[in-house]
């Protein structure tokens, strides 16, 4: 299915600068990197978490551990998802107990992914605190659950018919964030 690109809202350098700012906000809020533990949500949250950890290492001299969550088994829309992606592994090395967890994802939209991630995280242990960092927040009016981000790369108010496409060189040919829309024939 072809999507029509409506606007390019971030390019590679801009993503990089946003991550640098988020890294600095995170260490300021958590008084350093000591108890920090970053957790990327598959797929695109994972490289974002790795980059964020590198930036925190530059700032503080210590790199926080990075874990990976695959939320497939915790979704609330199991029977309505069409194609079935393979269930990937969740990897949370070490102990998350008493750590300051920062969940990292590319886009915050309805909040349901974050709900699933929180449920899964708590099955692994009892962190002292869980915060949320996203590269793009699509705006509060789309939220279906009382979930908000603590750190936001860019706030982008969008319509429901629009889709935020985050491209990272780990998975895509280029780096950037675009607003795309399905061709109008598809709607309805």
């Amino acid at each position, binding site marked *: 299915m072809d999507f029509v690109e409506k606007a390019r809202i971030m390019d590679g350098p801009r993503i990089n600068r946003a991550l640098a700012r988020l890294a600095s906000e995170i260490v300021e809020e958590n008084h350093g990197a000591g108890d920090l533990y970053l957790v990327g949500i598959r797929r695109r949250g994972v490289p974002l978490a790795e980059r964020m950890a590198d930036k925190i290492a530059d700032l503080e001299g210590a790199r926080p551990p990075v874990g990976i969550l695959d939320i497939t*088994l915790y979704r609330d829309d199991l*029977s309505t*998802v069409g*194609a079935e992606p393979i269930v990937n592994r*969740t990897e949370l090395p070490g102990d998350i107990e008493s750590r300051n967890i920062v969940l990292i994802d590319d886009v915050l939209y309805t909040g349901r992914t974050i709900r699933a991630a929180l449920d899964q995280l708590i*099955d692994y242990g009892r962190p002292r605190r869980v915060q949320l960092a996203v590269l793009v927040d699509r705006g509060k009016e789309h939220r279906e659950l009382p979930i908000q981000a603590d750190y936001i790369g860019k706030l982008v108010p969008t319509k429901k018919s629009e889709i935020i496409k985050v491209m990272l060189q780990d998975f895509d040919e280029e780096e950037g964030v675009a607003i795309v829309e399905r061709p109008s024939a598809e709607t309805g």
Partner: protein
Amino acid sequence: MSTTFNRKHLLGIRDLSAEEITYLLDTAETFRDVSRREIKKVPALRGRTVINLFFEASTRTRTSFEIAAKRLSADAVNISVSTSSVSKGETLLDTARNLEAMAPDCIVVRHSMAGAPHHLARMCNAPIVNAGDGSHEHPTQALLDGLTIREYKGRIDGLNIAIIGDILHSRVARSNIHLLTKLGATVRVAGPGTLVPAEFAELVEHGLRVEQRIEDAIEGADVVMILRIQRERQNAAFFPSMREYSVHYGLHPSHLERASRDVIVMHPGPINRGIEISSEIADGSRSLILDQVTNGIAVRMAVLYLLARGNHSAHEEASVKPAGPAGPVGNAKRVRKGIRA
């Protein structure tokens, strides 16, 4: 990675493609992690019901399916033949239809008749998992064996695998022969001539050899699978005595000297110590018997997860084939199905 598993039922390995088998094994690998956590449960099948309908004695397989269902948050109901109305004369199909009226999301069936799960798959709407049908197939056992081999050998393709024992009566052997040859292994089977007919070589197109002596099957083997002597299926005298079987076909440490240096030994259980396998091997470092049990839960979680979610494509129903060696069971007409559809 792009392939998926879109079937409604899991009836056997014979009809699966190598890609589908690999997808099932990949999915099972993820589920293995769940059992290693402190909280061994995910909400994936919350609110779904899995019925374990067992017409044959089983502890390991039934418990494994039950634990798998529970770790997925499904409700598991176990029905065994001794407590069911089958003893009051109800037919297999009536039993299944009554259970189906209670809206299960998956029915796991074990039956002494080959083809019984296939019959139910044709006549019922619920996804059916074959947990062993007579001497025909036992797909989840072959999958857990495949997962165990992959875990220890890193691959299945190109391996030499010996299967020793009562091949004739073994659904484990049949399912494994299909799975292992589809994934590129060479399988050699051996046992008493009465229990390893030469015609077995025709079961699959290539990759299977029938040997007379177990030494020939084990020569250079990367994996040795020992089958259980199924006393319950020995109606005729296939070999003179258990003692003689043990002497000629039991696996002893000296046999393994012929095998590859890092050979692994597997057995589907329950083991008859001192008959088909010596205790020294069963309890030794090459034995993966307990790893097989652990992997059984992961495999069954993957199968239940993929089938009981309820978004499989319906077209696959039409391709359900009649049972293999033992022929079809029953010839009921497809009347009810039409009404229900």
